[in-house]
């Protein structure tokens, strides 16, 4: 699942999108409420996406490569935040 705002895009892999533990964890760690735990599923709160402070807490809280934060204004090598070694 992926949702883009003006400056930031959030990508959550299908692998964890329905994982209750991941949903709870993401809701807990994001300081600007970009994730919500919707009855055990990960929900991206569209209205908050552009508030992302690029802290990587969501990335560190989930298995490698399952959450990516896209900087839509950046075309350089730092454009995607991810713990996937192939991207980050």
């Amino acid at each position: 699942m992926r949702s883009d705002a003006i400056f930031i895009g959030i990508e959550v892999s299908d692998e964890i999108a329905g994982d209750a533990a991941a949903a709870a964890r993401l809701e807990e760690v994001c300081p600007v409420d970009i994730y919500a735990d919707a009855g055990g599923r990960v929900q991206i709160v569209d209205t908050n996406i552009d508030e992302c402070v690029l802290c990587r807490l969501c990335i560190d809280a989930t298995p490698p490569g399952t959450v990516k934060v896209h900087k839509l204004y950046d075309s350089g090598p730092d454009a995607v935040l991810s713990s996937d070694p192939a991207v980050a």
Partner: protein
Amino acid sequence: MRFFEYEAREVVKRAGIPVTDYGFTTDAGEAKAIAERIGGPVVIKSQVLTGGRMKAGGVKFADTPEQAERDAADVLALEINGHMPRGVLVDPKASVKQEYYAGVVWDGTRKQPVMLFSDMGGIDIEEVAEQHPDHVGRRHFSNILPLSEFQAKQCIAQTGVTGSRLNKLVPILTRLARLFVDYDMTLAEINPLAEMEDGSFVALDAHMDMENEARPRQKALLKDLGVGDEETRQAREATEFELAGEAVDAQDHRGVAGNVTEFDGNLGLVIGAGGGSLTLFDAVRNAGGQPANYCEIGGNPSVAKACGLAKLVLSKPGVDKIAVMMSIVSNTRVDIVARGVIKACLELGYDPAEKITIFRIPGAWEEEGFKILDKYGVKYADRSVSLHEASRLAVEALAGTTHTNDPASGQ
């Protein structure tokens, strides 16, 4: 914040300075009772936070309690400069030999309080200073040490007052100086300070202005005077634009983005940082710009809050473009503010490159912010460009004279 006369008189009284046996009331019947207690001719004075009350009919003289009641009813119903009176002050009509002036104001240049004294009271001190400078005594004093009796004497003696009058005036001036410091006043004025027929001195009117930021420290005084937290006591009512700014700031606890004051220029300002708003405002004026507003942004506001403020400023009638600037390096996230102001332009259907004259925020995450500004073609300046230069660039951009390849712009 300003005090009504009846409150200012109470402050003067608390400081140990003699006042008349006045009474304050919101009821005409009670005004009659106060006049009966005083037992002689009285003055009924409207209690409004605006000048010109004498001219407007807000001050009346009554010889009897019945007349005092009628006059009080008239004055209580009289609007002056858009202000309805808080009540009336019923004051004995004093038998005055001579009127003096005593006041303390904050000298922002010297960063010290200055005591002012004149033997020509009852009129504007500015007028006396201009037309009769030899009748005004001045003495700066420490904000930490009390005004000494010697300093008070020096100030009074500059006007030629000597002898027993001088000696009687000294404690009044030292107490006035003390209350100025103790109560965080920016103005403490007794005018007129009357010398009565019996040779005593009495404060017949007082004006007090307290530092707004001192309100939490002066809770006890404000409670005694009955001034509630909800009373802002601003010089004028907030405009719709200013109230909307408050709403933007209140929408989120993160940072500051709001606190706007409305002006009638065409350059909207989204400015701030450590008291920098005033400096930036002045820099824009010095560069020939006409600010549409004064405001504050800083302390890491959210994107939504920065966006809300920028939208508000951009929506103000007469605003052509905005300048986004902070004066000093701070911890405010440059990228977050950049997102907010660009989002405001986009949501209002404007091209950010057109609407934002200059973006100069020396803060955290600058490089990230510059990437965003680059993407949307917004002209920006880094910390190597002074705020004066940035203000000049903003004013030039508004006038359509900026060269797009100006090396100082960072683009």
